[in-house]
């Protein structure tokens, strides 16, 4: 008693803080009201499912529920690491991702550099309008268009047969065409869209740099190499980091649509595997374990790549 009397601030300070919080809370009550739908959304459809990943450590049965399904520890993870099937699926995923990083990642950079060199503003805008368009089409339509052109009686085979006198090529069922086709489709759909950020970065380059390089006798190639490319270096690095963090995402809908009984062996990727095991075969726990495995590796990869970028003196993404 005496102590509080001697030093009234000790007991009054927290009260003051809490009343200030109460005041702010009541002043911002409408802001909290506006936040409720968003908070509920993230809670229900993003965070509760994260808690739901505990079933990766159970033999989950829908009839028993989370609380009564038996706990099995690392059983499913041990299966993942020992099943040749999973190793194959992981390999397919990484292979496709690798091809995409090698071919589909640099393509928009090249296209942006090309667009940046176009002198006529009108022509540039015309090309941009066209190359952005495929981005807005669904994968069903993109895959559908490729099928229409590539199937046995399609335009391409018609051309090969009639003009070149070749045998028809079974593009859609032949294993060796699966990966090139996936890459080609990604390129066709996304290359234009991918240029937007690079074009913005290119537009931010100081024009004096180009003039100085011209004075120094640089031709167009040298301007691209010594001014344009360094000017978008940090954008390239950031986007590459984001891409590296997603190496285990090979484009689920796309692959799923391209999958058929002929190419299953090389087309089954982690995402499609989770779908077949989890939803089709109702092996909820095992599929969740595979999904969790994938999510955690992805998380580690983004954080790692970001750290790497910082070490190389780039900004990083956070």
């Amino acid at each position, binding site marked *: 008693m005496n102590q509080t009397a001697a030093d009234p601030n000790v007991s009054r300070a927290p009260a003051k803080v809490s009343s200030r919080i109460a005041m702010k809370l009541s002043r911002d009550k409408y802001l909290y009201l506006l936040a409720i*739908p*968003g908070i509920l959304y993230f809670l229900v459809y*993003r965070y509760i499912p994260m808690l739901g990943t505990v079933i990766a450590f159970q033999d989950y049965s829908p009839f028993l529920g989370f609380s009564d399904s038996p706990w099995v520890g690392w059983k499913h993870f041990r299966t993942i690491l020992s099943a040749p099937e999973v190793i194959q699926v992981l390999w397919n995923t990484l292979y496709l991702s690798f091809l995409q990083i090698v071919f589909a990642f640099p393509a928009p950079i090249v296209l942006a550099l090309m667009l940046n060199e176009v002198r006529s503003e009108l022509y540039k805008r015309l*090309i941009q*309008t066209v190359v952005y368009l495929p981005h*807005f089409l669904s994968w069903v339509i993109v895959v559908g*268009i490729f099928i229409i052109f590539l199937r046995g009686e399609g335009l391409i085979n018609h051309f090969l047969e009639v003009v070149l006198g070749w045998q028809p090529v079974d593009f859609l069922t032949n294993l060796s065409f699966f990966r090139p086709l996936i890459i080609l489709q990604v390129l066709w759909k996304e290359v234009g869209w991918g240029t937007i950020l690079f074009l913005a970065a290119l537009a931010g380059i100081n024009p004096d740099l180009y003039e100085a390089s011209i004075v120094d006798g640089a031709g167009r*190639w040298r301007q691209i190499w010594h001014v344009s490319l360094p000017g978008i270096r940090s954008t390239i690095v950031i986007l590459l980091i984001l891409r590296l963090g997603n190496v285990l995402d090979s484009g689920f809908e796309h692959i799923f649509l391209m999958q058929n009984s002929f190419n299953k062996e090389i087309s089954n990727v982690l995402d499609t595997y989770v779908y077949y095991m989890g939803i089709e075969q109702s092996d909820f726990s095992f599929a969740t374990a595979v999904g969790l495995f994938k999510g955690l590796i992805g998380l580690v990869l983004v954080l790692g790549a970001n750290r790497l970028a910082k070490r190389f003196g780039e900004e990083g993404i956070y």
Partner: protein
Amino acid sequence: MKYKTASDRWFDWTNAILLALLAASMLFPFLYIFAVSFTTLDEFLHSELLLWPKKWVADAYLYILGSPTFLRSMGMTVYLTVAGTLVNLFFTTTFAFSLSRRIYGTRILLFAVLFTLLFSAGMVPTYLIVQATGLIDSIWALILPVAIAPFNLIIVRQFFMNIPGELYEAAIVDGANDLVIFWKLILPLSKPVLAAFALFYAVGHWNTYFAGILYLNDPRMWPIQVILRQIVVQNDSKAFGSSDVMAMLENPPPPETVQMAAILLATLPILLVYPFLQKHFVKGVMVGSVKG
């Protein structure tokens, strides 16, 4: 840069031609599909490269537009797109606005949002939650679980934060509370950005395909992309349902022209709005993502 050297000119021409070829590769499929969709079977079978039919027939379109399955799935998709986009905009703007005003808890909420960009629970637990919230076999299963795209939320918030603080102060002096400020000040000021995000969300809903297979067991609820997949990718010409219309037509259209007409009809809305919104969406991508 007034004069051009010979190598400069060579460079410019090569560049322009390569770009034209690339653009042509993106337009050509539509031209071809358009032409074939209006062709007779006979001409389709006997022409080398069909880019302009000699005789235009709309049988494929008549057949599709007479198919209850097609009309129902288009109706479903329109409903999904409109309702879904409204939900997206409501959830995204309200949350983005409150996060932009730095209330207590903003930091932790923002972290929670950003974390979902790095890690997500995966398909099966999400499926189980959609099931637990009673959305299986309801069109809302395609709307509520994707009510907010975290990335869009962050960008919209960034945009709100760039609105000058004086505007808020003026509004507060005028006696406006946060709800009034949000509705009467912020939203009208953000129209171009909201148009861009409305387009992104709407295209996402229009293209919804896998969620339809995943959450809707009843084929009568399937959005158009699921039907398209059956018709084009799986080559299932019966996917359009009853053949009553087929029987009524004098020359039933071949499956090829039906497929192509279906692709065009399902793409038409995007092709129609695209030119008008192009300016907005480029702005939409750049807001927030490029910081000086």
